Protein backbone atom coordinates (compact mmCIF):
# COMPACT_ATOMS: atom_id res chain seq x y z
CA UNK A 1 0.00 0.00 0.00
CA UNK A 2 2.76 2.43 0.99
CA UNK A 3 4.62 1.53 -2.18
CA UNK A 4 1.56 2.48 -4.23
CA UNK A 5 1.22 5.77 -2.37
CA UNK A 6 4.80 6.80 -2.96
CA UNK A 7 4.89 5.54 -6.54
CA UNK A 8 1.84 7.39 -7.82
CA UNK A 9 2.83 10.96 -8.47
CA UNK A 10 1.86 13.62 -11.01
CA UNK A 11 2.75 13.12 -14.68
CA UNK A 12 3.91 9.55 -14.31
CA UNK A 13 5.65 8.17 -17.40
CA UNK A 14 3.81 4.84 -16.92
CA UNK A 15 0.40 6.53 -17.09
CA UNK A 16 1.38 8.68 -20.08
CA UNK A 17 2.94 5.67 -21.81
CA UNK A 18 -0.18 3.58 -21.14
CA UNK A 19 -2.47 6.15 -22.74
CA UNK A 20 -0.09 6.51 -25.70
CA UNK A 21 0.02 2.74 -26.11
CA UNK A 22 -3.75 2.85 -26.63
CA UNK A 23 -3.28 5.45 -29.36
CA UNK A 24 -0.57 3.34 -30.94
CA UNK A 25 -2.79 0.23 -30.89
CA UNK A 26 -5.52 2.18 -32.67
CA UNK A 27 -3.06 3.85 -35.06
CA UNK A 28 -1.88 0.43 -36.24
CA UNK A 29 -5.40 -0.13 -37.59
CA UNK A 30 -5.58 3.05 -39.70
CA UNK A 31 -2.01 4.26 -40.37
CA UNK A 32 -2.00 3.26 -44.04
CA UNK A 33 -4.81 5.62 -45.05
CA UNK A 34 -3.52 8.53 -42.97
CA UNK A 35 0.04 8.13 -44.21
CA UNK A 36 -1.06 7.79 -47.83
CA UNK A 37 -3.07 11.03 -47.72
CA UNK A 38 -0.28 12.84 -45.84
CA UNK A 39 2.16 11.93 -48.62
CA UNK A 40 -0.20 12.47 -51.53
CA UNK A 41 -1.51 15.84 -50.37
CA UNK A 42 1.78 17.77 -50.66
CA UNK A 43 2.47 16.16 -54.02
CA UNK A 44 -0.91 17.34 -55.34
CA UNK A 45 -0.45 20.80 -53.84
CA UNK A 46 3.05 21.16 -55.26
CA UNK A 47 1.89 20.06 -58.68
CA UNK A 48 -1.15 22.35 -58.63
CA UNK A 49 0.16 25.45 -56.82
CA UNK A 50 3.86 25.15 -57.31
CA UNK A 51 4.27 23.97 -60.87
CA UNK A 52 0.97 25.47 -62.07
CA UNK A 53 1.47 28.94 -60.60
CA UNK A 54 5.21 29.11 -61.20
CA UNK A 55 4.67 28.27 -64.87
CA UNK A 56 2.14 31.08 -65.32
CA UNK A 57 2.16 33.78 -62.58
CA UNK A 58 4.95 33.50 -60.01
CA UNK A 59 8.41 32.30 -60.78
CA UNK A 60 10.06 32.94 -57.44
CA UNK A 61 9.52 34.64 -54.07
CA UNK A 62 12.41 36.48 -52.35
CA UNK A 63 14.82 34.64 -54.63
CA UNK A 64 13.38 31.20 -53.80
CA UNK A 65 11.74 29.14 -56.58
CA UNK A 66 7.98 29.16 -55.92
CA UNK A 67 7.77 25.36 -55.76
CA UNK A 68 10.30 25.39 -52.93
CA UNK A 69 8.60 28.38 -51.27
CA UNK A 70 5.26 26.55 -51.24
CA UNK A 71 6.81 23.19 -50.36
CA UNK A 72 8.53 24.54 -47.25
CA UNK A 73 5.37 26.46 -46.32
CA UNK A 74 3.27 23.36 -46.59
CA UNK A 75 5.03 21.86 -43.58
CA UNK A 76 2.91 24.25 -41.50
CA UNK A 77 -0.34 23.24 -43.16
CA UNK A 78 0.51 19.57 -42.67
CA UNK A 79 1.19 20.24 -38.99
CA UNK A 80 -2.04 22.13 -38.25
CA UNK A 81 -4.19 19.66 -40.14
CA UNK A 82 -2.61 16.67 -38.43
CA UNK A 83 -2.78 18.22 -34.95
CA UNK A 84 -5.65 20.66 -34.40
CA UNK A 85 -8.26 18.70 -36.33
CA UNK A 86 -7.50 15.19 -34.93
CA UNK A 87 -7.31 16.72 -31.46
CA UNK A 88 -10.71 18.38 -31.80
CA UNK A 89 -12.61 15.52 -33.40
CA UNK A 90 -10.69 12.65 -31.77
CA UNK A 91 -11.10 14.05 -28.27
CA UNK A 92 -14.78 14.81 -28.77
CA UNK A 93 -15.54 11.34 -30.15
CA UNK A 94 -13.54 9.53 -27.47
CA UNK A 95 -15.22 11.51 -24.71
CA UNK A 96 -18.82 11.81 -25.88
CA UNK A 97 -19.42 8.84 -28.14
CA UNK A 98 -16.95 6.11 -27.14
CA UNK A 99 -16.69 6.83 -23.39
CA UNK A 100 -13.00 6.02 -23.70
CA UNK A 101 -11.95 8.60 -21.14
CA UNK A 102 -14.31 7.18 -18.51
CA UNK A 103 -12.45 3.87 -18.79
CA UNK A 104 -9.01 5.48 -18.68
CA UNK A 105 -9.82 7.73 -15.72
CA UNK A 106 -11.13 4.74 -13.75
CA UNK A 107 -7.52 3.47 -13.91
CA UNK A 108 -4.75 5.24 -11.98
CA UNK A 109 -4.47 8.01 -14.58
CA UNK A 110 -5.44 11.62 -13.92
CA UNK A 111 -6.71 14.23 -16.35
CA UNK A 112 -3.33 15.94 -16.57
CA UNK A 113 -1.66 12.69 -17.61
CA UNK A 114 -4.45 11.86 -20.04
CA UNK A 115 -4.27 15.24 -21.77
CA UNK A 116 -0.47 15.25 -21.78
CA UNK A 117 -0.38 11.81 -23.38
CA UNK A 118 -2.95 12.73 -26.02
CA UNK A 119 -1.02 15.94 -26.85
CA UNK A 120 2.29 14.11 -26.97
CA UNK A 121 0.92 11.42 -29.24
CA UNK A 122 -0.61 13.93 -31.65
CA UNK A 123 2.54 16.07 -31.47
CA UNK A 124 4.86 13.19 -32.30
CA UNK A 125 2.66 12.00 -35.15
CA UNK A 126 2.31 15.50 -36.60
CA UNK A 127 6.06 16.07 -36.31
CA UNK A 128 6.56 13.10 -38.65
CA UNK A 129 3.74 13.97 -41.04
CA UNK A 130 4.95 17.59 -41.03
CA UNK A 131 8.20 16.45 -42.63
CA UNK A 132 6.47 14.80 -45.59
CA UNK A 133 6.00 18.04 -47.59
CA UNK A 134 9.68 18.83 -47.03
CA UNK A 135 10.70 15.40 -48.33
CA UNK A 136 8.41 15.80 -51.33
CA UNK A 137 9.89 19.26 -52.01
CA UNK A 138 13.37 17.75 -51.91
CA UNK A 139 12.15 15.32 -54.57
CA UNK A 140 10.97 18.40 -56.52
CA UNK A 141 14.49 19.90 -56.42
CA UNK A 142 15.05 21.51 -53.00
CA UNK A 143 18.62 20.97 -51.82
CA UNK A 144 18.86 19.13 -48.47
CA UNK A 145 20.44 21.20 -45.67
CA UNK A 146 21.69 20.18 -42.18
CA UNK A 147 19.25 22.62 -40.56
CA UNK A 148 16.40 20.48 -41.85
CA UNK A 149 17.19 17.94 -39.13
CA UNK A 150 15.60 20.42 -36.72
CA UNK A 151 12.32 20.56 -38.64
CA UNK A 152 10.72 17.65 -36.67
CA UNK A 153 11.48 19.55 -33.47
CA UNK A 154 9.86 22.74 -34.80
CA UNK A 155 6.86 20.69 -35.94
CA UNK A 156 6.62 18.95 -32.58
CA UNK A 157 6.22 22.11 -30.50
CA UNK A 158 3.82 23.68 -32.99
CA UNK A 159 1.76 20.50 -33.09
CA UNK A 160 1.74 20.25 -29.29
CA UNK A 161 0.27 23.74 -29.12
CA UNK A 162 -2.37 23.03 -31.73
CA UNK A 163 -3.18 19.67 -30.14
CA UNK A 164 -3.76 21.52 -26.87
CA UNK A 165 -5.93 24.01 -28.72
CA UNK A 166 -7.97 21.19 -30.31
CA UNK A 167 -8.41 19.34 -27.01
CA UNK A 168 -9.50 22.53 -25.25
CA UNK A 169 -12.01 23.23 -28.02
CA UNK A 170 -13.36 19.66 -27.74
CA UNK A 171 -13.90 20.26 -24.03
CA UNK A 172 -15.67 23.56 -24.65
CA UNK A 173 -18.07 22.86 -27.53
CA UNK A 174 -21.46 21.34 -26.79
CA UNK A 175 -21.99 19.64 -30.16
CA UNK A 176 -19.65 18.31 -32.79
CA UNK A 177 -21.18 20.68 -35.41
CA UNK A 178 -19.72 23.62 -33.51
CA UNK A 179 -16.27 22.65 -34.79
CA UNK A 180 -17.36 24.35 -38.03
CA UNK A 181 -17.11 27.68 -36.18
CA UNK A 182 -13.72 26.79 -34.76
CA UNK A 183 -12.39 25.80 -38.19
CA UNK A 184 -13.82 28.87 -39.94
CA UNK A 185 -12.81 31.37 -37.25
CA UNK A 186 -9.41 30.03 -36.21
CA UNK A 187 -7.94 27.17 -38.21
CA UNK A 188 -8.51 28.44 -41.76
CA UNK A 189 -7.44 32.07 -41.09
CA UNK A 190 -4.31 30.89 -39.26
CA UNK A 191 -3.45 28.65 -42.17
CA UNK A 192 -4.09 31.36 -44.78
CA UNK A 193 -2.04 34.08 -43.05
CA UNK A 194 0.84 31.80 -42.17
CA UNK A 195 2.92 32.83 -45.16
CA UNK A 196 2.81 29.29 -46.54
CA UNK A 197 1.53 30.27 -50.00
CA UNK A 198 2.52 33.95 -50.22
CA UNK A 199 4.82 36.20 -48.17
CA UNK A 200 2.97 38.05 -45.41
CA UNK A 201 4.76 41.23 -46.46
CA UNK A 202 2.06 41.48 -49.12
CA UNK A 203 -0.66 41.75 -46.45
CA UNK A 204 -1.96 45.06 -45.01
CA UNK A 205 0.13 46.26 -42.06
CA UNK A 206 -2.48 45.30 -39.43
CA UNK A 207 -2.69 41.78 -40.74
CA UNK A 208 1.10 41.54 -40.82
CA UNK A 209 1.16 42.22 -37.07
CA UNK A 210 -1.54 39.58 -36.54
CA UNK A 211 0.43 37.16 -38.69
CA UNK A 212 3.47 37.65 -36.44
CA UNK A 213 1.36 36.34 -33.55
CA UNK A 214 0.42 33.29 -35.59
CA UNK A 215 2.40 30.21 -34.46
CA UNK A 216 2.03 28.74 -37.93
CA UNK A 217 3.84 31.74 -39.41
CA UNK A 218 6.68 31.20 -36.95
CA UNK A 219 6.86 27.57 -38.04
CA UNK A 220 6.87 28.53 -41.73
CA UNK A 221 9.75 30.94 -41.12
CA UNK A 222 11.68 28.37 -39.09
CA UNK A 223 11.30 25.71 -41.80
CA UNK A 224 12.44 28.19 -44.45
CA UNK A 225 15.34 29.08 -42.17
CA UNK A 226 16.21 25.40 -41.95
CA UNK A 227 16.13 25.11 -45.74
CA UNK A 228 17.71 28.41 -46.76
CA UNK A 229 19.67 29.58 -43.70
CA UNK A 230 18.78 30.52 -40.10
CA UNK A 231 18.69 34.03 -38.67
CA UNK A 232 19.17 35.00 -34.98
CA UNK A 233 15.47 35.89 -34.79
CA UNK A 234 14.71 32.21 -35.34
CA UNK A 235 15.68 31.57 -31.72
CA UNK A 236 12.88 33.92 -30.67
CA UNK A 237 10.52 32.20 -33.07
CA UNK A 238 11.36 28.78 -31.61
CA UNK A 239 10.98 30.08 -28.05
CA UNK A 240 7.56 31.45 -28.95
CA UNK A 241 6.51 28.00 -30.19
CA UNK A 242 7.67 26.40 -26.93
CA UNK A 243 5.69 29.01 -24.98
CA UNK A 244 2.66 28.42 -27.24
CA UNK A 245 2.81 24.67 -26.51
CA UNK A 246 3.17 25.20 -22.74
CA UNK A 247 0.29 27.68 -22.48
CA UNK A 248 -2.08 25.55 -24.56
CA UNK A 249 -1.09 22.45 -22.54
CA UNK A 250 -2.28 24.09 -19.33
CA UNK A 251 -5.43 25.43 -21.01
CA UNK A 252 -6.24 21.95 -22.36
CA UNK A 253 -5.68 20.28 -18.96
CA UNK A 254 -7.83 22.89 -17.25
CA UNK A 255 -10.71 22.65 -19.75
CA UNK A 256 -10.69 18.86 -19.85
CA UNK A 257 -10.65 18.61 -16.05
CA UNK A 258 -13.73 20.82 -15.96
CA UNK A 259 -15.38 18.61 -18.59
CA UNK A 260 -14.41 15.17 -17.28
CA UNK A 261 -14.68 15.53 -13.51
CA UNK A 262 -18.20 16.24 -12.20
Amino acid at each position, binding site marked *: *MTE*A*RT*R*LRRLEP*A*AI*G*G*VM*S*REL*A*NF*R*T*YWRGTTFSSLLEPIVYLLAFGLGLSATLVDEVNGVPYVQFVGTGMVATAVIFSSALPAMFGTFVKHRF*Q*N*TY*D*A*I*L*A*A*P*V*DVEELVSAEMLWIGLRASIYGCFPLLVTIAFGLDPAPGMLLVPLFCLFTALGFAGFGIAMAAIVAKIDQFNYVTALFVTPLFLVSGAFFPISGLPEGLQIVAQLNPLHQLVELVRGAAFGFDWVDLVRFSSLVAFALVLWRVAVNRMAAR*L*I*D
Partner: protein
Amino acid sequence: MAAIELRGVVKRFGPILAVDGLDLDVPEGICLGLLGPNGAGKSTTMRLLTGQALPDAGELRALGHELPADSKAARAEMGVVPQLDNLDVDVTVEDNLAVFARLYRVPDVGAAVDRALDLARLQARRRDAVDELSGGMRRRLLFVRGLIHEPRLVLLDEPTVGLDPQIRTQIWALIDELRSRGTTILMSTHYIEEAERLADEVAVMASGKVISRGRPAELIAEHAGRETAEVYAPPQRLAEVRVRAEAVGLRVRPAGPAVAIVGSDRAEDGAVPADAVRRAASLEDVFVLLTGEEAE
Protein backbone atom coordinates in the same frame (compact mmCIF):
# COMPACT_ATOMS: atom_id res chain seq x y z
CA MET B 1 -11.15 -2.54 7.84
CA ALA B 2 -14.04 -1.84 5.49
CA ALA B 3 -13.10 -1.78 1.79
CA ILE B 4 -15.42 1.20 1.29
CA GLU B 5 -16.53 3.74 3.89
CA LEU B 6 -18.83 6.62 3.00
CA ARG B 7 -20.02 9.08 5.65
CA GLY B 8 -22.61 11.77 4.95
CA VAL B 9 -21.67 12.02 1.28
CA VAL B 10 -23.52 14.67 -0.68
CA LYS B 11 -23.30 15.28 -4.42
CA ARG B 12 -25.32 17.89 -6.29
CA PHE B 13 -25.60 18.56 -10.00
CA GLY B 14 -26.98 22.09 -10.04
CA PRO B 15 -30.41 21.91 -8.43
CA ILE B 16 -30.45 18.09 -8.48
CA LEU B 17 -29.41 16.30 -5.31
CA ALA B 18 -27.96 13.05 -6.71
CA VAL B 19 -26.47 11.72 -3.46
CA ASP B 20 -28.05 12.91 -0.24
CA GLY B 21 -25.99 12.28 2.89
CA LEU B 22 -25.07 8.74 1.95
CA ASP B 23 -23.60 6.45 4.62
CA LEU B 24 -22.31 3.15 3.33
CA ASP B 25 -19.80 0.57 4.58
CA VAL B 26 -18.70 -2.35 2.44
CA PRO B 27 -16.71 -4.92 4.48
CA GLU B 28 -13.87 -6.72 2.73
CA GLY B 29 -14.71 -9.93 0.90
CA ILE B 30 -18.43 -9.44 0.40
CA CYS B 31 -20.55 -8.64 -2.64
CA LEU B 32 -22.81 -5.72 -1.84
CA GLY B 33 -25.63 -5.06 -4.28
CA LEU B 34 -26.68 -1.43 -4.60
CA LEU B 35 -30.27 -1.86 -5.69
CA GLY B 36 -32.32 1.09 -6.77
CA PRO B 37 -34.37 2.57 -9.57
CA ASN B 38 -32.86 4.80 -12.26
CA GLY B 39 -31.84 8.12 -10.74
CA ALA B 40 -31.40 6.66 -7.23
CA GLY B 41 -27.74 7.80 -7.16
CA LYS B 42 -26.03 4.45 -7.81
CA SER B 43 -23.88 5.53 -10.77
CA THR B 44 -22.96 8.82 -9.08
CA THR B 45 -21.80 6.83 -6.06
CA MET B 46 -19.62 4.74 -8.39
CA ARG B 47 -18.16 7.88 -9.99
CA LEU B 48 -17.44 9.35 -6.54
CA LEU B 49 -15.46 6.20 -5.74
CA THR B 50 -13.37 6.47 -8.92
CA GLY B 51 -12.67 10.18 -8.46
CA GLN B 52 -14.67 11.10 -11.56
CA ALA B 53 -17.10 13.03 -9.41
CA LEU B 54 -16.12 15.18 -6.44
CA PRO B 55 -18.32 15.21 -3.33
CA ASP B 56 -19.88 18.45 -2.12
CA ALA B 57 -19.76 17.15 1.45
CA GLY B 58 -18.92 14.03 3.43
CA GLU B 59 -16.03 11.62 3.78
CA LEU B 60 -15.05 8.80 1.45
CA ARG B 61 -12.44 6.08 1.90
CA ALA B 62 -11.68 3.19 -0.41
CA LEU B 63 -9.17 0.49 0.57
CA GLY B 64 -7.85 2.82 3.24
CA HIS B 65 -7.27 5.73 0.84
CA GLU B 66 -8.93 9.10 1.40
CA LEU B 67 -10.99 10.19 -1.59
CA PRO B 68 -10.69 12.21 -3.68
CA ALA B 69 -7.23 13.28 -2.39
CA ASP B 70 -5.69 9.83 -2.70
CA SER B 71 -7.94 8.63 -5.48
CA LYS B 72 -5.16 7.63 -7.84
CA ALA B 73 -3.66 5.18 -5.36
CA ALA B 74 -7.13 3.79 -4.61
CA ARG B 75 -7.84 3.31 -8.32
CA ALA B 76 -4.61 1.36 -8.70
CA GLU B 77 -6.10 -1.25 -6.38
CA MET B 78 -9.66 -1.28 -7.64
CA GLY B 79 -11.16 -2.52 -10.86
CA VAL B 80 -14.12 -1.00 -12.64
CA VAL B 81 -16.52 -2.67 -15.04
CA PRO B 82 -18.57 0.06 -16.68
CA GLN B 83 -22.20 0.04 -17.68
CA LEU B 84 -21.43 0.98 -21.28
CA ASP B 85 -19.16 -0.90 -23.66
CA ASN B 86 -16.15 1.37 -24.21
CA LEU B 87 -13.77 -1.13 -25.81
CA ASP B 88 -11.66 -0.05 -28.78
CA VAL B 89 -13.54 -1.87 -31.50
CA ASP B 90 -10.89 -1.84 -34.26
CA VAL B 91 -8.16 -3.05 -31.92
CA THR B 92 -7.49 -6.71 -31.18
CA VAL B 93 -8.77 -8.41 -28.05
CA GLU B 94 -5.26 -8.83 -26.62
CA ASP B 95 -4.27 -5.23 -27.35
CA ASN B 96 -7.37 -3.95 -25.58
CA LEU B 97 -6.27 -5.88 -22.52
CA ALA B 98 -2.58 -4.99 -22.83
CA VAL B 99 -3.36 -1.25 -22.86
CA PHE B 100 -5.19 -1.55 -19.54
CA ALA B 101 -2.49 -3.78 -18.08
CA ARG B 102 -0.07 -0.90 -18.78
CA LEU B 103 -2.45 1.71 -17.38
CA TYR B 104 -2.64 -0.34 -14.17
CA ARG B 105 1.20 -0.73 -14.10
CA VAL B 106 1.02 -4.55 -14.23
CA PRO B 107 4.66 -5.76 -14.25
CA ASP B 108 4.13 -8.73 -16.60
CA VAL B 109 1.68 -7.52 -19.24
CA GLY B 110 1.79 -10.76 -21.28
CA ALA B 111 0.95 -12.95 -18.28
CA ALA B 112 -1.88 -10.64 -17.23
CA VAL B 113 -3.36 -10.70 -20.73
CA ASP B 114 -3.18 -14.51 -20.81
CA ARG B 115 -4.85 -14.75 -17.42
CA ALA B 116 -7.67 -12.44 -18.51
CA LEU B 117 -8.15 -14.31 -21.79
CA ASP B 118 -8.43 -17.59 -19.88
CA LEU B 119 -11.00 -16.13 -17.50
CA ALA B 120 -13.07 -14.73 -20.38
CA ARG B 121 -12.58 -17.91 -22.45
CA LEU B 122 -11.29 -15.80 -25.34
CA GLN B 123 -7.85 -17.33 -25.95
CA ALA B 124 -8.87 -18.47 -29.44
CA ARG B 125 -10.02 -14.95 -30.37
CA ARG B 126 -7.07 -13.01 -28.96
CA ARG B 127 -5.90 -11.67 -32.32
CA ASP B 128 -9.36 -10.77 -33.61
CA ALA B 129 -10.61 -7.19 -33.63
CA VAL B 130 -13.27 -6.53 -31.00
CA ASP B 131 -15.70 -5.67 -33.81
CA GLU B 132 -15.64 -9.33 -34.86
CA LEU B 133 -16.76 -10.67 -31.47
CA SER B 134 -20.30 -11.63 -30.49
CA GLY B 135 -22.16 -9.52 -27.92
CA GLY B 136 -21.44 -12.02 -25.14
CA MET B 137 -17.73 -12.18 -25.94
CA ARG B 138 -17.47 -8.37 -25.94
CA ARG B 139 -19.17 -8.20 -22.61
CA ARG B 140 -16.87 -10.84 -21.12
CA LEU B 141 -13.88 -8.94 -22.51
CA LEU B 142 -15.10 -5.70 -20.98
CA PHE B 143 -15.52 -7.52 -17.67
CA VAL B 144 -12.05 -9.07 -17.53
CA ARG B 145 -10.45 -5.81 -18.69
CA GLY B 146 -11.49 -4.37 -15.32
CA LEU B 147 -9.79 -7.30 -13.54
CA ILE B 148 -6.53 -7.22 -15.51
CA HIS B 149 -4.53 -6.15 -12.42
CA GLU B 150 -6.27 -8.57 -10.01
CA PRO B 151 -7.87 -5.82 -7.92
CA ARG B 152 -8.89 -6.21 -4.29
CA LEU B 153 -12.08 -4.26 -4.90
CA VAL B 154 -14.26 -4.34 -8.01
CA LEU B 155 -16.97 -1.83 -8.87
CA LEU B 156 -19.59 -3.25 -11.20
CA ASP B 157 -21.85 -0.54 -12.57
CA GLU B 158 -25.03 -2.19 -13.87
CA PRO B 159 -22.93 -5.06 -15.26
CA THR B 160 -25.74 -6.74 -17.20
CA VAL B 161 -27.95 -3.82 -18.17
CA GLY B 162 -29.50 -4.33 -21.59
CA LEU B 163 -28.07 -7.83 -22.06
CA ASP B 164 -30.03 -10.85 -23.18
CA PRO B 165 -30.51 -13.64 -20.58
CA GLN B 166 -27.80 -15.87 -22.04
CA ILE B 167 -25.10 -13.18 -21.85
CA ARG B 168 -26.34 -12.17 -18.42
CA THR B 169 -25.78 -15.74 -17.22
CA GLN B 170 -22.21 -15.65 -18.58
CA ILE B 171 -21.49 -12.44 -16.67
CA TRP B 172 -23.02 -13.87 -13.51
CA ALA B 173 -20.66 -16.83 -13.79
CA LEU B 174 -17.72 -14.39 -13.92
CA ILE B 175 -19.04 -12.54 -10.87
CA ASP B 176 -19.37 -15.88 -9.05
CA GLU B 177 -15.74 -16.58 -9.92
CA LEU B 178 -14.72 -13.25 -8.42
CA ARG B 179 -16.72 -13.89 -5.25
CA SER B 180 -15.09 -17.29 -4.84
CA ARG B 181 -11.69 -15.57 -4.82
CA GLY B 182 -12.75 -13.32 -1.95
CA THR B 183 -12.67 -10.11 -3.99
CA THR B 184 -14.79 -7.31 -2.53
CA ILE B 185 -17.53 -6.32 -4.96
CA LEU B 186 -19.79 -3.30 -5.05
CA MET B 187 -22.39 -3.92 -7.72
CA SER B 188 -25.03 -1.40 -8.72
CA THR B 189 -28.07 -2.88 -10.38
CA HIS B 190 -31.73 -2.30 -10.85
CA TYR B 191 -32.39 -5.97 -11.58
CA ILE B 192 -33.89 -7.66 -8.53
CA GLU B 193 -32.94 -11.14 -9.71
CA GLU B 194 -29.31 -10.07 -10.12
CA ALA B 195 -29.10 -8.67 -6.61
CA GLU B 196 -30.87 -11.70 -5.12
CA ARG B 197 -28.69 -14.15 -7.03
CA LEU B 198 -25.27 -12.54 -6.47
CA ALA B 199 -25.21 -10.22 -3.49
CA ASP B 200 -24.33 -11.26 0.06
CA GLU B 201 -26.02 -8.07 1.17
CA VAL B 202 -28.32 -5.63 -0.57
CA ALA B 203 -28.54 -1.89 0.05
CA VAL B 204 -31.71 -0.40 -1.38
CA MET B 205 -31.11 3.15 -2.62
CA ALA B 206 -33.69 5.78 -3.41
CA SER B 207 -33.32 9.54 -3.82
CA GLY B 208 -29.58 9.45 -3.15
CA LYS B 209 -29.55 7.52 0.12
CA VAL B 210 -29.69 3.97 1.43
CA ILE B 211 -33.19 3.36 2.75
CA SER B 212 -32.69 -0.25 3.84
CA ARG B 213 -29.88 -2.77 3.99
CA GLY B 214 -29.35 -6.40 4.86
CA ARG B 215 -29.11 -9.92 3.54
CA PRO B 216 -31.85 -10.55 0.96
CA ALA B 217 -33.67 -12.98 3.32
CA GLU B 218 -33.47 -10.45 6.17
CA LEU B 219 -34.85 -7.65 4.02
CA ILE B 220 -37.72 -9.85 2.88
CA ALA B 221 -38.54 -10.92 6.45
CA GLU B 222 -38.35 -7.33 7.71
CA HIS B 223 -40.37 -5.61 5.01
CA ALA B 224 -42.51 -8.24 3.30
CA GLY B 225 -43.11 -11.03 5.79
CA ARG B 226 -43.34 -14.66 4.71
CA GLU B 227 -45.98 -14.68 2.03
CA THR B 228 -47.45 -12.59 -0.77
CA ALA B 229 -50.78 -13.23 -2.45
CA GLU B 230 -51.28 -12.22 -6.05
CA VAL B 231 -54.75 -11.58 -7.38
CA TYR B 232 -55.41 -11.67 -11.10
CA ALA B 233 -58.70 -10.04 -12.10
CA PRO B 234 -60.23 -7.22 -14.17
CA PRO B 235 -59.16 -3.70 -13.08
CA GLN B 236 -62.40 -2.91 -11.24
CA ARG B 237 -62.12 -6.01 -9.05
CA LEU B 238 -58.42 -5.37 -8.43
CA ALA B 239 -59.35 -1.93 -7.12
CA GLU B 240 -61.88 -3.52 -4.74
CA VAL B 241 -59.30 -6.09 -3.55
CA ARG B 242 -56.80 -3.32 -2.90
CA VAL B 243 -59.29 -1.25 -0.86
CA ARG B 244 -60.29 -4.27 1.25
CA ALA B 245 -56.68 -5.33 1.95
CA GLU B 246 -55.48 -1.81 2.77
CA ALA B 247 -58.45 -1.34 5.07
CA VAL B 248 -57.03 -4.05 7.35
CA GLY B 249 -53.49 -2.63 7.21
CA LEU B 250 -52.00 -4.83 4.50
CA ARG B 251 -49.62 -3.36 1.94
CA VAL B 252 -50.59 -3.78 -1.67
CA ARG B 253 -48.54 -3.16 -4.76
CA PRO B 254 -49.17 -3.45 -8.49
CA ALA B 255 -47.64 -6.55 -10.08
CA GLY B 256 -48.17 -6.33 -13.82
CA PRO B 257 -51.74 -7.51 -14.55
CA ALA B 258 -52.27 -8.36 -10.87
CA VAL B 259 -52.05 -6.79 -7.44
CA ALA B 260 -49.77 -8.32 -4.83
CA ILE B 261 -50.92 -8.32 -1.21
CA VAL B 262 -47.72 -8.38 0.84
CA GLY B 263 -47.70 -10.16 4.20
CA SER B 264 -50.81 -12.13 3.28
CA ASP B 265 -49.96 -14.82 5.85
CA ARG B 266 -50.79 -12.30 8.58
CA ALA B 267 -54.11 -11.30 7.02
CA GLU B 268 -57.50 -11.80 8.70
CA ASP B 269 -60.08 -13.97 7.03
CA GLY B 270 -61.66 -12.28 4.05
CA ALA B 271 -58.87 -9.77 3.43
CA VAL B 272 -57.27 -12.01 0.83
CA PRO B 273 -59.59 -13.46 -1.83
CA ALA B 274 -59.83 -17.23 -2.01
CA ASP B 275 -58.69 -17.26 -5.64
CA ALA B 276 -55.40 -15.44 -4.84
CA VAL B 277 -52.17 -17.17 -5.79
CA ARG B 278 -50.03 -17.47 -2.68
CA ARG B 279 -46.23 -17.48 -2.97
CA ALA B 280 -43.17 -16.79 -0.84
CA ALA B 281 -42.44 -13.08 -0.38
CA SER B 282 -39.58 -11.86 -2.58
CA LEU B 283 -36.97 -9.12 -2.80
CA GLU B 284 -39.09 -7.66 -5.56
CA ASP B 285 -41.87 -7.08 -3.04
CA VAL B 286 -39.39 -5.29 -0.79
CA PHE B 287 -38.03 -3.18 -3.65
CA VAL B 288 -41.43 -2.02 -4.82
CA LEU B 289 -42.68 -1.33 -1.32
CA LEU B 290 -39.59 0.68 -0.41
CA THR B 291 -39.04 2.61 -3.62
CA GLY B 292 -42.53 2.79 -5.06
CA GLU B 293 -41.06 1.75 -8.41
CA GLU B 294 -42.02 -1.16 -10.63
CA ALA B 295 -39.33 -3.85 -10.51
CA GLU B 296 -37.39 -5.07 -13.58
